[in-house]
């Protein structure tokens, strides 16, 4: 039934689908691992019970989210070979080692210490346990380092050559790893992960404050999350702007698609706020634009000339409508986050942080905004570098495996069915965990195994004390 389909399009759909599901979980667990490390450090430092309660509360959520990240991640590591074998053969010598280093320095570190982090507090004591938590948190960040380096090299390749077999080879590994877009992308993504987590934590805190504004755990997590929104949202907007300027320098065509600039502007380009990109006709329909502002933002001069897609051969155009709109969704989410951060700061200054129902409702509504922004951002950057896998050097159509369309279609359908079945259940369990309020004597994962509730460490002692009150 799929004979008439294009195997490359199906393989792209499969990558987009599995990647979009996957990125949600690491984006959350990168931030959550760091948050857990902060909570445990605060507990060790202050001895306040509320911190270990919050730690155990979020640890259960982390365990479920991390598991989903692991299983969806293994799919990604094999998909390069199954669906993109030509890419693997040609690009494997350059990005393969970066991913191998990710496994060696990050995945093993996370997995090796995860068991102790989840189940080992009573076995190893609080100090060693904190080290395990720290290792998991550091592991998630190292993982981000390598995978974003690999992705950035595909966007802005440097430090390479091509050998007789048509394979890319590294000439200078430092130039490969620290390629021009990597530092910007790394900062932008890690901040995005932190914001995403903060918005979920803030929403959960706000949800419980709406029911009981005196709940200690909810107050602490809400306050911490709102500090993150207040401080990090503006930093992220600056980081995003810098990333955009870097993209203008190295991938100008992507910026043309993001801005919807089909035509060149000799004396100052407008900022197109909204419009309907008409790819076939090569023009922006129904454009709402501010004259000269595009050049002002990108070139810091209102009359600076800006080239448009009319200077680029048609076969090198990205899918402008997707890039254009996903970019606007991401920016919109960022502005909402900025508003939440500012509003919460205002309420905090007025002493109404725990009392403003409007703020709490706003924070609950913002729960998915981080995920939406992350997905929209990735769609922007990944569609914006099309039609290439290695920007300017290797076309997407030349990267795919020699597979028949029915094979790719069957596996795509299998992934869709399985992912919806499995991850829907997982998200329901996560929401169920989040719907329960954090309480004194909060237990870690496996709380239904009876003897786990009793123990000899300070953690259990504090928990027991809390429960006795």
């Amino acid at each position: 039934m799929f004979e008439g389909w294009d195997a490359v399009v199906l393989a792209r759909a499969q990558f987009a689908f599995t990647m979009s599901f996957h990125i949600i979980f690491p984006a959350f667990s990168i931030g959550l691992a760091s948050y857990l490390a902060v909570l445990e450090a605060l507990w060790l430092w202050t001895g306040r019970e509320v911190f270990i309660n919050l730690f155990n509360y979020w640890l259960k959520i982390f365990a479920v989210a991390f598991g989903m990240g692991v299983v969806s991640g293994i799919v990604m590591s094999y998909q390069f070979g199954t669906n993109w074998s030509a890419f693997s053969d040609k690009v494997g010598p350059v990005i393969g080692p970066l991913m191998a280093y990710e496994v060696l320095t990050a995945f093993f570190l996370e997995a090796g210490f995860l068991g102790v982090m989840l189940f080992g507090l009573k076995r190893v004591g609080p100090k060693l346990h904190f080290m395990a938590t720290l290792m998991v948190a550091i592991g998630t960040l190292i993982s981000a380092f390598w995978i974003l380096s690999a992705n950035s090299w595909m966007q802005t390749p440097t430090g390479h050559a091509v050998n007789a077999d048509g394979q890319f080879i590294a000439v200078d590994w430092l130039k490969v790893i620290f390629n021009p877009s990597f530092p910007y992308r790394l900062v932008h993504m890690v901040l995005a992960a932190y914001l995403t987590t903060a918005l979920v934590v803030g929403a959960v805190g706000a949800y419980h404050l709406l029911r009981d504004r005196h709940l200690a755990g909810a107050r602490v997590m809400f306050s911490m999350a709102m500090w993150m929104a207040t401080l990090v949202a503006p930093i992220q907007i600056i980081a995003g702007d810098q990333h955009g300027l870097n993209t203008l320098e190295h991938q100008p065509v992507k910026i043309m698609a993001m801005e919807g600039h089909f035509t060149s502007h000799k004396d100052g380009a407008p900022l197109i706020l909204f419009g309907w990109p008409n790819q076939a006709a090569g023009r922006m329909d129904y454009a709402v634009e501010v004259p000269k502002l595009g050049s002002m933002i990108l070139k810091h001069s209102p009359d600076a000339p800006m080239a448009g897609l009319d200077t680029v051969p048609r076969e090198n155009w990205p899918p402008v409508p997707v890039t254009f709109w996903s970019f606007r969704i991401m920016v919109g989410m960022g502005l909402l986050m900025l508003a939440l951060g500012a509003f919460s700061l205002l309420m905090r200054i007025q002493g109404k942080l725990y009392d403003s129902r409007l703020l709490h409702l706003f924070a609950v509504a913002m729960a998915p905004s981080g995920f939406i922004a992350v997905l929209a951002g990735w769609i922007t950057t990944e569609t914006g570098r099309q039609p290439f896998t290695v920007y300017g050097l290797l076309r997407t159509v030349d990267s795919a495996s020699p597979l028949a369309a029915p094979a790719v279609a069957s596996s795509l359908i299998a992934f869709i069915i399985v992912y919806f079945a499995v991850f829907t259940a997982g998200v329901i369990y996560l929401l169920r965990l989040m719907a329960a309020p954090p309480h004194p004597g909060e237990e870690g994962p496996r709380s239904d195994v009876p003897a786990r509730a009793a123990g000899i460490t300070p953690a259990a002692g504090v928990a027991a004390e809390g429960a006795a009150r």
Partner: protein
Amino acid sequence: MIGIDLPVIWAFIIAFAVFVYVVMDGFDLGLGILFPLFPEKRDRDVIMNSVAPVWDGNETWLVLGGGGLMAAFPLAYAILMPALYTPMIAMLLGLVFRGVAFEFRWRTTKERNKWDIAFAGGSLLATLAQGIALGAILQGINVSGRTYAGGWWDWLTPFSILTGVALVIGYALLGATWLVMKTEGELRDRAYRLSWILLMAMLGAIGAVSAATPFLSLQYTQRWFTFPNIVLTAPVPVAVAAVTALLLRSLANKYDYQPFFLTLALFALSYAGLGISMYPYIVPQSVTIWQAAAPENSQVFMLFGVAVLIPLILGYTAWAYWVFRGKVNHESGYH
């Protein structure tokens, strides 16, 4: 790097990663395969808890095997993965079900049975797919130029089904002897009885695969049965016989640790046998490790990391196992 044959070193590193994966995730998956034989919730909780802290680390070796293959032998990765398309996708989906079940089954009472089925079914599917993939590699792959040239059902033959079933039996034996080591009482007794049956089945499977392999190609026959190779290959079946005898004795004497580690030895010998059959091909009969090797500077760049990090990884992995050492029982996850 004159005088050092990098592709040979890397072949051993990848082989090592895959072997560690087989050993470590083997017993995890084996527990999943045996899950239907333990219908009681109490037993299932213990079985799950016995691997919950370590399964994720175990599975990471699979990522290293795949990622390492892409990095060190990109051509082999590019040929093998499309050739093994269906088994690979099946394995990945099986691992999805198996992996999420570790957490999901504790998060629901009503649907626990569903995730128990996912755990067992996912483990069985992933194992069968791995075994079939192994058989499909051994029987040879249709290659043209730098790409796979066969269809998407080429992997399915009686031989690949045989290796698939053999691996299911092997992992189940690893799982049963793991339970002997990690549990007590009635659960342990049942694991003993299962170990006997599975060991017999495993010996039958090793025999059947060994008997069938030489018929796949002339190369395998020459490799095993001609002089002077036979001087090197003959010790393998002799060692298998010796390990089997020790394993039978350890089961008869109801030892705790020996059955598991002797089963590992049996796996190591079977694995060495596979290595003898395949070397120096990475895609049997078409691509050697030298032809598939990544450029020297890619292999050198990673070798530094491997030399430092693998010992470190083995160290902290051993520590995690040490933290969760000892028997698991019903009253506590660990005691």
